[in-house]
């Protein structure tokens, strides 16, 4: 390191950092970064990672029950991938946390105390095999849209992890679609199963992308855009989802539980019934329909296996 680098002021470092960001360069874990950039990344990536892990829970309910060996193998592999994504992302978050002295244990602890949120869709019930298919098809479909948005994120380790994750998510969406197709082409009972799942999940899928931006410059959304962690807004992503999936849902003869939904040719956007945003607020306080149950399952397994983690630290 040359003396001039040491002599740099925080402002100069920040300026250089922003120049790199604006040139489209990517930042590595050991590079200098402003605190709010680091904090935004920690929040985003640990939430993403923990959501993958919590997201395994509603689907894993259906792993032992899947109706054929092929489906059992498919959904087991799918849930395993989600756990793998969780691991990949927590490793990225752990590196970012290093200067703060925090570890993976702290991330788990933050989850249990409610300081770290997990994604809204994973607070919802999945009462039928139709839900197992729908999660793969539409929830993973929505995830592909938000994650593709961040593929070229300014933070290189996150960008690399997302490339791998997105590649696997495409298989998941195909796995989900295959389940849905089999049901949609099946008996009346099977068709009802899919329709019920679409009706049940529609609002959650709209909530998935988060609220449209409010005060410019203040929200988390704007920080991530300023630092080129992600280029598109919540609403742009939601519109992309509707463009991709509304026609597919309708082509299977399924109904969307919103009589007002239509594409406005003039405005070039989807007009739809707004979801009840207060539900998202409740979920963020871990007051969703299944929030406590799923947290309990995670907590029980964590506490139940505490002796194993302790033992691994004491191998003679």
């Amino acid at each position, binding site marked *: 390191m040359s003396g001039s680098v040491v002599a740099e002021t925080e402002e100069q470092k920040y300026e250089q950092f922003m120049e790199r960001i604006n040139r489209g360069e990517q930042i590595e874990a050991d590079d200098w970064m402003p605190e709010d950039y680091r904090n935004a990344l920690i929040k985003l990536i640990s939430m993403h990672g923990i959501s993958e892990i919590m997201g395994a829970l509603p689907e894993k309910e259906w792993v032992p029950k899947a109706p054929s060996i092929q489906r059992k193998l498919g959904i087991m592999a799918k849930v395993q991938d989600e756990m793998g994504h969780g691991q990949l992302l927590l490793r990225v978050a752990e590196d970012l946390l290093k200067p703060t002295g925090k570890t993976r244990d702290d991330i788990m602890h933050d989850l249990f105390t409610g300081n770290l949120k997990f994604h809204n869709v994973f607070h919802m019930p999945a009462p039928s095999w139709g839900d197992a298919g729908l999660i793969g098809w539409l929830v993973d479909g929505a995830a592909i849209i938000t994650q593709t948005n961040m593929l070229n994120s300014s933070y290189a380790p996150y960008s690399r992890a997302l490339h791998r994750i997105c590649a696997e998510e495409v298989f998941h969406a195909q796995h989900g679609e295959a389940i849905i197709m089999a049901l949609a082409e*099946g008996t009346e009972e099977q068709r009802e199963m899919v329709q019920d799942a679409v009706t049940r999940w529609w609002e959650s899928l709209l909530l998935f992308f988060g609220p449209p931006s409010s005060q410019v410059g203040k929200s988390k959304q704007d920080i991530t855009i300023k630092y080129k962690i992600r280029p598109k807004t919540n609403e742009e992503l939601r519109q992309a989802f509707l463009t991709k999936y509304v026609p597919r849902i309708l082509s299977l003869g399924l109904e969307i539980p919103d009589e007002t939904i239509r594409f406005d040719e003039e405005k070039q956007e989807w007009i739809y019934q707004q979801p009840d945003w207060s539900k998202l607020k409740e979920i963020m306080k871990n007051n969703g329909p299944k929030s406590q149950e799923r947290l309990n399952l995670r907590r029980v397994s964590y506490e139940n296996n505490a002796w194993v983690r302790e033992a691994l630290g004491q191998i003679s």
Partner: protein
Amino acid sequence: MSTNAVEMTPAHKEALAELLFQLADDDFLLSYRGSEWLGLAPHIEEDVASSSISQDTMGHAKMYYGLLEELGYGKIDDLAHGRSAKERKNSILVERENGAGYYMETPRYDWAYAVVRNYFYTLAKKVKIDSLKKTTYQPLAEVATKVSMELFYHHLHWRTWFTQLLSSSDEAKERMNKAIDGVMADFGDVFSYGNASQSFKEFALIEDATVLKQRWEAALKEVVKALHIESPIIQQPDRNGRLGEHTEELDRALSTLSEVYRLNPAVPW
């Protein structure tokens, strides 16, 4: 001398099917138990690893059920999901629950039990698979060769957990020893052929159970000696799963694993 299904006598075919049901039901049930652990393993890395093993194991069950389908015993998924507990030929060990509690509510699963069950079972499976490579039924010998390649890693995985936890904290040792007792109490029928010992021998399907049992005990003896614990000895079974004698734990497993299938077994899912 190898044989194929076409030139088989009814008695020969019956013996072969009996062996295939034992192998298939064992792997299917153990893999199902593994799938209940999904998302609940001691750490994320282990969750990913043991899920791979469960998938391989279910793949093995599928190959055995597939051989039964070829022999005309019904479709793979009906064989896996549609048979009652009485018809099942799996050992008691693989049907046992992972611990207290339902997998969706508050499961108090026991990782020590999981490690010991998987390690002892995998070692037994390895001994059987090595013998099956020389079976007279060529399609089964081919399956054994495929299974063998994956089994190498399963065995390595569980042996590592077994030796590490027994070389660790006092609590871990205590839990592991308790798990060994629990697993051995159910081990009596793992090497049992039910009523088929004679016919297995007659058609040279697999070596004598006594021989395989000795190989298992000898292999394990080497491992436990280094860990300063007693060599487990296989006892006569109180209850023999190969004869269709099972526990309520199997009833509960079958009811869960076939819940969706039973809505309509006749249609594709």
